[in-house]
């Protein structure tokens, strides 16, 4: 157990400098965006005096390194700054906008995991059967489908032709109740399909490898029931792979959700980003990217910790349990 805690601390110590470097990189990258944010904020009719005044209020007249110092100091207290456009704290804006994005990403993850793993297991158990061939063909197509095209096809089919589901928009659960689920069906399907394909294929090939191992033969020779062998012995060993894929999947889905939100006009991080870029609203782009980077690093940290929980062979470095 002591080793385990040490391992956790080591992973955290690895993440902190990484997060710091990323934040610094993002800060200076944002400063490279052409155009003066004060001028963009005031619009084309602004006078030089007005621009200077606003620059002073925004703190843009200070040397870059001072701006960076102030910004980093605020960041440590969890303050992402003030949006030039909305005149509201970035924290609040991101907090309202991240909810739909998180909702889509989390629902898609759960659905992909359940369906993807199930398809992969069925495929592996019935290897080279008709079912297996069908699943392999299906998942090959799923992996190749561009999700934005799929989203448009789904809109055309279920929204425009059949009129079963709304073509775009978003309701929170408080606003729409069960109706709000209807707005999420198409975006979630569009994002999840690719991930289901990838997961099913990975689980299938890993299971196929595991089922050829000696210990499976031993278990069979001992006369254990087939399902015990498959679930307790074989599937346990594919969990690691599932974990790795889930970590990568989440990163891909955050990117996917941004695009999907644009297509379905969902007021999430994607729309916020695109609007912020046209308005040169540094604070929002910066803050949004930092939230995503940190979320990603935390996800990776959790995946690493879960590795150690699932697989006792993962060594914690110097000592072992």
């Amino acid at each position: 157990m002591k080793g385990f805690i040490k391992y956790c601390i080591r992973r955290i110590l690895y993440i902190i400098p990484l997060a710091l470097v990323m934040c610094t990189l993002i800060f200076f990258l944002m400063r490279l965006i052409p155009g003066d944010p004060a001028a963009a904020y005031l619009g084309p009719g602004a006078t030089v005096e007005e621009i200077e005044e606003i620059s002073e209020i925004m703190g843009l007249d200070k040397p870059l390194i001072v701006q960076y110092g102030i910004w980093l100091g605020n960041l440590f207290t969890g303050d992402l700054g003030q949006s030039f456009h909305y005149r509201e704290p970035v924290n609040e804006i991101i907090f309202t906008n991240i909810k739909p994005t998180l909702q889509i990403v989390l629902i898609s993850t759960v659905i992909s995991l359940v369906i993807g793993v199930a398809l992969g297991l069925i495929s592996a158990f019935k290897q080279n059967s008709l079912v297996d061939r069908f699943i392999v063909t299906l998942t090959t197509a799923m992996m190749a489908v561009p999700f934005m095209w799929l989203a448009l096809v789904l809109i055309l089919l279920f929204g425009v032709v059949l009129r079963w589901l709304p073509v775009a928009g978003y309701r929170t659960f408080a606003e729409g109740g069960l109706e709000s689920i209807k707005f999420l069906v198409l975006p979630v399907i569009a994002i999840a399909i690719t991930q289901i394909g990838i997961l099913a294929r990975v689980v299938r090939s890993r299971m196929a490898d595991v089922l050829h191992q000696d210990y499976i033969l031993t278990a069979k020779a001992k006369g254990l029931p087939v399902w015990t062998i498959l679930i307790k012995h074989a599937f346990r060993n594919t969990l690691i792979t599932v974990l790795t894929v889930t970590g990568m999947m989440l990163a891909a889905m955050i990117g996917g959700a941004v695009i999907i939100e644009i297509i379905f006009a969902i007021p999430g991080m994607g729309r916020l980003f695109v609007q912020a870029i046209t308005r040169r609203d540094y604070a929002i782009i910066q803050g949004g990217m930092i939230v995503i980077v940190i979320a990603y690093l935390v996800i990776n940290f959790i995946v690493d910790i879960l590795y150690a929980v699932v697989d006792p062979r993962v060594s914690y470095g110097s000592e072992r349990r």
Partner: protein
Amino acid sequence: MNTDDAVWETEQALAQDMSIKRGRRESWAKVLFRNPLVILSCIYIAGVCFVAVFAPLLASYPPHYTDIYSRLLPPGSPGHLLGTDQLGRDVLSRMIYGARTSFYISILVTVSVGALGITIGIFSGLSRKADEIIMRITDMLMSLPPVIAGLALMAVLGPSITNLFIVLVVVFTPRVARVARGETLVVREATYIKAVQSMKGSLGRIIFKHILPNIASPLIVQLCLMFGGAIVTEAALSFLGIGSPPEIPSWGNILSDGRIYIRGGWWLSIVPGTAIFLAVLAFNLLGDALRDVNDPRQYGR
């Protein structure tokens, strides 16, 4: 007899040993083309490449030719096989020019990422000191989802084909470098590398004659999958308004432009989307087939 000759002789012996093994197998081309889907994939890829190269000869209209009187004509209209868009531009002609942009970018990105990623990966796999730093940098670059990284970089650089290329290279290189490094780490410990080292084979010789051929197959597969990935990422960035600039048609920006007209002109998004889908599918199938050819465990299954 100098060292290089000794190395050469050992290599010949090893090659002979390998060829005995290879003799038992069928030729890789035979295995590859046994699957009719792979043949179809190759035909599609070759077809799109052909269309891309000879675009000006094949397209019946220039890509920007607008005819406001024949707007949103459905596919099959006389003179417009795949219909026209909201400005009366011929969709087929735009698709032909779009193939040029999409494939040009993807080929360029794949080749650059391949060269850069493999070089960095091998270097990282061989040098313990550099490894630590390089892996931290790739960790960092990979801690942003591709679309978000693209969004930030394009905001800084501004939309143009060159910048799009830079963004895609930055996004994909760490992923290829990781695979190359992992494979190098495995190969590095192999007995035949130790053998060449013990005979004072030069580092260049080890890298080009021993490491590169042995890590090539997973990387070729990776690059195959990446080709499709580059087309899709370009399309995804187009949806954010930061793909290829509007004046240069690509499959990605034709698809993203078409989304507004989904009710009145479904073909505007279905046609480019299907072209992208088939391209990704073809490269994935080819990649899968190449993996199966290179993976001896797959034989006999």
